[in-house]
């Protein structure tokens, strides 16, 4: 069971009524990054595959317009999801700043919740991906990746040895 204390960072979830275009997502993420105290931001939404995953058209390129390269801060990344909700963690209470930002950027309603959205403890899946907890240098990675990610994408060396 995960318990929270006053010293734990606070987490928020932004749930807009419409799913965001890449340009809106880029704007929002850049503005969130500028809020002091925000340490982690995660975007979640339905996947945008590179090729048709099943059916008679399997393997045909999709070329989705929403799968765009965006720039957040000094990092460039390709969006692999249609941005549906944004979860963030901050060292201090930034609820009102985030609310003001969303009211400024979204022409549609949105929900803003405070809660526990990004896990703080390693799960068995995390163990398989990153190895024993004491070996993981950057524990902020927990809860930031797709749980359905293929095990071969990144797996701890001891697990590979076990399999062999």
């Amino acid at each position, binding site marked *: 069971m995960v318990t929270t204390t006053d010293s734990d960072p606070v987490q928020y979830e932004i749930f*807009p*009524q*419409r*799913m*965001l*275009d890449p340009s*809106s997502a880029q704007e929002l993420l850049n503005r969130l990054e500028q809020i002091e105290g925000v340490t982690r931001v995660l975007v979640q939404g*339905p*996947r*945008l*595959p590179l090729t*048709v*995953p*099943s*059916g*008679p*058209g399997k393997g*045909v390129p*999709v*070329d*989705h*317009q*929403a799968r765009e390269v965006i720039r957040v801060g000094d990092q460039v990344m390709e969006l692999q999801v*249609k941005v*549906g909700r944004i979860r963030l963690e901050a060292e201090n209470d930034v609820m009102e700043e985030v609310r003001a930002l969303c009211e400024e950027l979204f022409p*549609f309603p949105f929900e803003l919740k405070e809660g526990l959205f990004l896990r703080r403890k390693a799960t068995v899946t995390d163990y398989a991906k990153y190895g024993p907890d004491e070996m993981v240098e950057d524990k902020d990675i927990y809860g930031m990746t797709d749980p359905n990610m293929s095990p071969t994408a990144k797996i701890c060396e001891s697990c590979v040895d076990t399999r062999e």
Partner: protein
Amino acid sequence: MAYTPQYYPGASHVAVNRRKHMSGDVEKLRTVSDDDLVAALGHRAPGADYPSTHPPLAEMGEPDCPVRQMVEPTPGAAAGDRVRYSQFTDSMYSAPSIPYFRSYYAAINFRGVDPGTLSGRQIVEARERDMEAQCKAAIESEMTCPALAGLRGCTVHGHSLRLAEDGMMFDMLERTHLEGGNVIEDKDQVGVPIDRKVNLGKPMSDAEAKKRTTIYRTDGVKYRSEEEVLDHVHLVHHRRTMYGYRPETAAETAPGVGPVTYHTV
């Protein structure tokens, strides 16, 4: 006086729309050419002949059967067409139609069709030219908003997701997109690109979609506010539960007993 079936109870505009879809009395809003429709369906090349699975019935020499003599074959069956499908997805955000009413529409108004109703999609299987006739009627009518509904042979999960900022239903395969205010389809049902841009016309505004919808929603017409529908559903439920396959034996709901009112819990 000729009998006019009522099809569906209720007084709200949602109930009226449901009656329209069932009766086939739907307004035509757009025109999609035959070749565009064939390309969007993706079963054969536009302009190509219909492939067949058997010779035309007239050439086959059918057995002497009273049922075959009574029932006139559909054009597709008479020509020996293959059985092919069309599948629609309708957004839960006030799309004009829903799978059940697409199936009612197909089954009541068209012959030789086999509608399949699922939670998020509705499929119609029929002989190829019969299916195309039914699909064309549905896609051209008020039953379809190009932004809130779509021809999707697979990956239909956008029906239950929030809309995009431009009001389009999410589609993982992006079969349709908005271009100059019109919805353009440039892939077939299963996501394979086609060599043309099928113009499906302008999407409905929010107000128009809510006016033409057959969906009861808390932000529109609430199901609980539709007394006649609730009463009818309770009646059917009561008879089916208490009297199984003999609902006519239900004494308390027999003709002449008077109205039976059921109260929503």
